[in-house]
């Protein structure tokens, strides 16, 4: 499938009376890797939930290519190429690795290409191939994160949304996860990644948005943000 641009304008969203996002705008062009960084509670997860249809925005427009995300049922969005690896991975712990991948290939277009996609995922994550018959819940955190990313890749997405892929993982495993993100984007897949691990994520993305208390407070290229004194002192523990 060819690329499509993700664009959000004036997005307001929240839960009940609590507003988590205030007039957030964001754009991700085909082939780009974009990061969203910010402290805990800044609204990063809410932003991804709006893009994958898990949460309806209260105002603003969200489009992916020609599709109005806010007007499309959430379960139709994987069909137009949006794949979301949610916070805390949300694997099915009582199903095997292979069954988790199978649920990831639920949409008709993915079922037709199941063998090809599974081979692709197993090539990228050889550990998953070794453990294909193991229950997902019995694997280590890093392996589970790989399984969650693999499950999302089964649908041949055009954009991959990653929510805190490094959360709860040992530093060595975090490095592996980011190396994989780099590989995925090198293959031309558009990536939008939400992270608290600012230093690491700025090394693998082209551009990033800084979110704080539901507002976009800064945006720019990774290099510019990494050298911005304000960002450094706020997130990178810099001098």
């Amino acid at each position, binding site marked *: 499938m060819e690329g499509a641009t993700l664009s959000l304008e004036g997005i307001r969203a929240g839960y009940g009376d609590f507003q988590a996002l205030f007039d957030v705008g964001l754009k991700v062009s085909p082939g780009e890797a974009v990061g969203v960084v910010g402290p805990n509670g800044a609204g990063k997860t809410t932003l991804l939930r709006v893009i994958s249809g898990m949460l309806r925005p209260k105002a603003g427009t969200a489009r992916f290519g020609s599709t109005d995300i806010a007007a499309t049922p959430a*379960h139709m*969005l994987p069909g137009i190429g949006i794949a*979301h690896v949610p916070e805390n991975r*949300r694997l099915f712990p009582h199903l095997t690795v292979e*069954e988790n991948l*199978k*649920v*990831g290939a639920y*949409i008709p277009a993915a079922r037709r290409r199941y063998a090809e996609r599974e081979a692709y995922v197993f090539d990228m994550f050889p550990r998953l191939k070794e453990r294909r018959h193991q229950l997902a819940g019995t694997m280590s955190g890093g392996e589970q994160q790989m399984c969650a990313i693999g*499950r999302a890749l089964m649908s041949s997405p055009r954009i991959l949304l990653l929510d805190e892929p490094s959360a709860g993982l040992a530093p060595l495993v975090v490095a592996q996860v980011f190396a994989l993100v780099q590989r995925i984007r090198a293959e031309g897949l558009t990536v939008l990644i939400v992270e608290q691990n600012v230093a690491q994520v700025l090394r693998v993305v082209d551009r990033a948005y800084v979110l704080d208390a539901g507002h976009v407070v800064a945006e720019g290229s990774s290099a510019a943000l990494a050298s911005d004194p304000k960002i450094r002192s706020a997130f990178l523990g810099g001098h």
Partner: protein
Amino acid sequence: MDPFLLEAIVNGILLGGVFALPVLGLNLVFGVVDVVWLCYAELVMVGMYCVWFLHTQAGWPLSLAFAACLPVVAMLGLLLHLLVVKPLLGSPPITQVLATGGVLFILQGGAMLTFGTDFRSLGVEMPPMEVGEIFVSGTKLVAFVAALVSAAGLWAFLKFTYVGTAIRAIARDREVMPLMGVDPQRIYLVASAVGGGLAGLAACLLVVQLDVHPFIGLSFGPITFMICVMGGLGNMLGGFLAAFLMGVIISTGGFWWNTEMSYVVAFVFFIVVMFARPRGLFAR
């Protein structure tokens, strides 16, 4: 071993096979939709009337009557979901239980108005078979084999198909399913139709053994719920195994004491299990 005890055990296992189908159906619907169909045994009752009516009144061959019973009760399961359960999906569990309980009385009353309170018999009985020292009812044996084959078919559906895998997944995490392109509402429909279909199958197996009347559901409904809870509500394998355990307890209880006492023994066993393992015999 005493041949009569052996016969009681064998009969218990055969009885367990008949319990197994409604237990699987109830567990499937509860696991997926998170609603207990209190009127499940009454769906079976409707299926039994359906077979009885088509065979003895409309003159259909028994095989055709069986074949018609499945889609009829599956459709009833669909309607139950669409008309009663779906509008109450966000309601407190007590509301849902009372609503499906209301359907129980509607189905009972409807059957009474339509067919009266007479016991209706299909009038088919296969000769008992002599196996070694014991006699086994041919009808019960056929019903048992059919129940096992159906359970195996259900297992294969849940294990090997995309929809079946999604059904097992959704039982654990509803909210995340749309991210995989799964529409939970559609999975609920599939589970309700399959749950209804299993009630239809159970009806075919029961109607050859028992006379049907409007209150027949009361004779196996409570025990079905008990088995589900004992195996762990929503736990398909646990319920399946508990069905056989319960069948053997009831049957051997009848051997040691008498048939009335056998149900008392079964309920006492159930209470003991609930104290020892409140989340079910096979909860992990």
